C-alpha cells in the first residue's frame, strides 16, 4: 500500500504548502525591485543629473548642482499631484546663466518662453487613471516628519533621478509594489488616535503591528481601505 501512497502524499503535501503559501502571500514584490520603464522622448532632453546630481569636486563643470528636488518640483508638497514646474521657473534661473545660453536645449527652452507656449512634457510616472497617489502625504511623512533626505524619499518611487538625464521610470509602481511598502514598513492602525478595542487591526491589508504610543499612531497610517487610492 505504501507504494501507492507515495505520490498522493507528495501531492497533498504540495497542496498544503501551496495553499498556505498562497493564502499567506506575505511576499509581495520587493520595494527595491527595479523595473525600468521605456525611455520617454521629451520635447527638451532635460538633464536631471546636471541639476540634481552630486558635485564633482574635480571638475565643477561636469558634476551636478545638487539642487533640491523640491526646488523645482514645488507642487508635490502642496498637492496630491506633483505637476511639472512652470516654464517661468526654468527661465528664472536660466535668464541669468549666460554660460549655457547658447546650448541647443536652452535655446529651445527660450523659444517656448518667447512664444509663451507651455512645454508639452510627457508623463513619465503615469499611474492608471483609477489610481490616486498623494504626493503631499508622502512628503509630509518622510521629509517633514521623519526628516529623511529629500532625494531618498522621492527616490522610493522615482528611483535615482539624479543619475538620469531624462527621467525614466525605475520602479514597478504596481499595486503589489505599493503594498509591499505599506505593509512591511508602515503598519496600519486606526486613524486619528489610539486604537479602540481591537479595531486598529481591522482594516489593513494584513495584520498590522499595534502602535506603541499615540504620537506614533498619528504618523503611522497607511491606506486602510480601497477607496484611499481608487475612487
Amino acid at each position, binding site marked *: 500500500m505504501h507504494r501507492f501512497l507515495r505520490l498522493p502524499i507528495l501531492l497533498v503535501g504540495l497542496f498544503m504548502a501551496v495553499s498556505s503559501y498562497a493564502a499567506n502571500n506575505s511576499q509581495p514584490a520587493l520595494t527595491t525591485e527595479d523595473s525600468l520603464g521605456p525611455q520617454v522622448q521629451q520635447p527638451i532632453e532635460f538633464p536631471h543629473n546636471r541639476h540634481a546630481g552630486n558635485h564633482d569636486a574635480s571638475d565643477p563643470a561636469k558634476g551636478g548642482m545638487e539642487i533640491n528636488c523640491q526646488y523645482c518640483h514645488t507642487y508635490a508638497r502642496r498637492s496630491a499631484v506633483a505637476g511639472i514646474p*512652470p516654464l*517661468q521657473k526654468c527661465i528664472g534661473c536660466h535668464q541669468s546663466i549666460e554660460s549655457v545660453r547658447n546650448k541647443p536645449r536652452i535655446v529651445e527652452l527660450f523659444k517656448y518662453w518667447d512664444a509663451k507656449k507651455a512645454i508639452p*512634457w510627457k*508623463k*513619465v510616472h503615469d499611474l492608471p487613471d483609477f489610481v490616486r497617489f498623494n504626493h503631499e502625504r508622502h512628503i509630509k511623512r518622510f521629509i517633514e516628519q521623519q526628516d529623511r533626505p529629500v532625494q531618498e524619499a522621492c527616490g522610493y518611487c522615482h528611483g535615482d533621478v539624479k543619475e538620469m538625464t531624462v527621467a525614466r521610470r525605475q520602479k514597478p509602481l504596481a499595486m503589489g509594489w505599493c503594498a509591499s511598502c505599506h505593509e512591511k514598513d508602515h503598519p496600519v492602525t486606526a486613524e486619528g488616535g489610539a486604537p479602540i478595542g481591537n479595531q486598529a487591526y481591522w482594516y489593513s491589508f494584513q495584520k498590522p503591528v499595534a502602535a506603541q504610543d499615540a504620537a506614533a499612531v498619528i504618523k503611522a497610517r497607511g491606506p486602510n481601505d480601497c477607496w484611499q487610492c481608487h475612487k
Partner: protein
Amino acid sequence: MIDSDSVKQLAGHPFDRRDFLKVLGWSGTAVALSGCGNTSIEDGRETVVSYVEASDYMVPGIGVYYNSTCAQCDAGCNINGRVREGRVLKLEGNPDSGINKGKLCGLGQAGVQHHYNPDRVREPLLRNGSKGEAITWDKAYALIAEKLAGVQGDEIAFLSGGMSGHLKVLLGNYLDSLGTRNHFVYEAIAPSVVRAANVKAYGVEMPRYRLDKAKVVLSFGADFLGAWVSPVHFSQQYAQFRKGVDGQRGVLIQVESKMTLTGANADRWLVVKPGTEGVLALGIINVLGTATGDVAELVKGYDPVRVSRETGVSVSHIEKVAALLRMRSPSLVLAGSAAEGYAHGSQNAAAINLLNQVLGNVGKTIEAPVSVPFPQMAPAKGNTAALKSLNDGLAAGKYKVVFNFAANPVFTAPGAMKFKDNFAKAGFKVAFAHYLDETALQADLVLPLDSALEDWGTQVPEYMTEGAQINIQQPLMERLHANTRGMGDIVLALLKQRKADEYKGFEDYYAYLRGAMLQNKGALGGGGVDDDTFWNETLTRGIVKLAGATGALTTHATAAGLVFPAHKEADEHYPLHLIPGVTASLRDGRHTNQPWLQESPDPLTTIVWDSWVEIHPKKATELGIVEGDIVEVTSRTGSVKAQVYLFPGIHPEAVSIPVGRGHDAMGRYAKGYGVNPFQIMDTVFEAATGELAMHETRVKISKTGQRVLVVKDEGAAGALQMGRKIASRVSTDQIDLSKEV
C-alpha cells in the same frame, strides 16, 4: 483634490485676473476619460498639464474657487466656480451671498454645460442663402456699420432679455448714439402683471417677501420654490418658515389649477377653477370679516357659497383657510403666475394683494425693497407687452435693422403672433447668440458670444434680498473658443463705430467696467482704499454690497377699480384651459440644450427629455385616454401632438403642457425633443397691462391612436409606495418639533 481651504489660499493674493488668465497657457488636453479601461502603468503617453507662468496659488491638483454670478436666470445668485488646471469644473453657491447663501439650484449648476456646450456658435456667421458663412469680426462690425448707415433711429429695434448693470448702461449709450428708443426688453415668463398690481397696492413693483417671518403662506399660484422670481432665495426662506417662527411650523396653502413644485410642497393644495383665484381671495376676505370701508362693500357679495360655486373650492376649506389666517399671524399671501395669466389677471392680483392688506401683513411679512443707488444700472425688466409692440412694428415693416440679444422670440412668442413671419420682414437682423437658436437661425448675422463663465459683467438682481448688491461676473477660465466675444466688448466696439472719441480710452469692456466701477469707488464701499486693492477685493468677493435705498410701502387697502368680469361660460368647441407649465429647470427654454437639465426629471411627473400633456385621471377616463397616448391638443391657433401623463394635480377642466421643450434648433441636446406649447397659444392680452395672458388659451384634445412609453424616472408602481414606509408623512399633532435640532 477639493479642499474647502483652498478658497482661503485665494484670499489675500493681490492679482490681476485678466493677466493671470492670459499667461496661464495650459497644455495637455487629455482628460482622464477612462477610469477602468487601462490597468497598467502608461509611461510617456499622456502629457503633463504645464504652465508657462503660474501664480503661487495655482497648484496642479488643487481647486481654486472664483466668485462670479450665475447667468442662468434673472435671480442673480452669486456663484463660486471651482477651477482646476485652468478649467472650470463645477459651480457652487457663494456663501457670502444674500440671495442664495451658498446654495445653487440645478439650473444654476448646469451653467457649466452652457459654457462647455458643444453646440455653441464659434465664429461670426453671415447668412448666405440658408447657410451661415464664417466671417471675421472686422467684417462683421463693418457690415453692421454698413447696414446702419443712413437708417433712421426709429427704423432700428433692439430686442433683448432682461438686463442690468454696466452692460445696460453701455447698450443704452449705444442705442442713444443710434438715435433709437426702440429697446424692447422681453421676457416670455415674467411676473409683469403682478408687478403692476403691486405698484398699485404697495407702491413698489416687487416688495421684499419674508416667508421666513410668516406663519402661514397662502400662495395663489406663485411657484416660489420652482421658477418664480428668486427660487433659491425663497427656498431658503421656506426652510426657515418650515422650522417655524416661535416654534410654530409654517403652514403653506397653495391655490392653483395646476400643481406647481410649490403646490406639491403645500400642506393644503386647493385646486381652483382656472382664473378664479381672485374670487377666492375675495371670498376669504369675506369670511375673515375684518375688512372695512369699500373693501367690505366689495366682498359682501362674495359669500362662501357663491365663491365655492365659482371656484370649486369647498366652503369648509374656505372657512378653514380663513380661520387659520385669522389665528396665525403674520401671514403672507402671494400672487403668482397662475393668478396673473388671465385677461383679468390684474384683478386677480389686486384681490390677492388686498387680502394681504386686510390681514395686515404689509410691513410685517411684506417689506419695502432695497434698491441700488444707481438707477441707470437698475434692471430693465422684461415683459411680454414689449414683444407685442415689437411684433406690431415688425408686422408693419417698420424696422430696417433689428438686433436680438438674450431672447428667443421665434420660439417663445405665441403662435398666433406669427412672429417668425413678421421677423422676416425686417431688413437686416443681427443676433448676438451663444447657440443657433430659433431666432438666431432667422438672423442675417450671428455674432458668437462668450459664455457667462468667460465674460465680464455686472448685474443688479431684479429681486433684492438682504440689502442692495451688485453682482460681479468674471471669467472663470480662458475662452474656450478663440472667436467668441463678450457682449460688452461687442457693444463697446459698436459704440466706437459711432463715438470713437468718447470711448477710445477703453481698450475693451473690461477696462470700461473697471473704470466705471473705480469711478464710483466711494459709493461702492471702497472709500479710502487704493484702486487695485478695491478692484481685487471686489473681484475676490464677487459681490458689491451696498447700503441701498429703501422705499416706503403703501398700506392702505382699497378696492378701487376692482371689478371682476362676469362668470364666463365654458367654450363649447375648446372646452379645456391650456395651462403652460413652467418648470424650474427649463423655464422658457433657453437652457434646454444643457443635458443635465434634459435628464433631470421633472419633479412632479419625473418625465425627462420630452414634453407631456398633463390630464387629470378623471378627465382621462372620461375621454378614454391612458398614460402614453399621443393626443393632439388643438387651440384656435394651432395644434401639437404630445404624450399624455395622468396627473392628479390639475383641474379636470384644464390640461397643461410644459414650456421649454420643442426646439427645432439649439443643437443636439434640444432639437427634436418634445413640443412647444407657445406655438398653439392664442394672443389674449391682460386688460390692464397689455401683457400676454398666458393661461387664456382654450384647447380641445383628441386621441391620435398612437401610444408610447413615457420616458420617466418613476417606475411601474407610479407614485405609490405599496404599503412600504419609504417617504413617510406625519401630521403636526403627532409630533413635537420643538425638540429638534
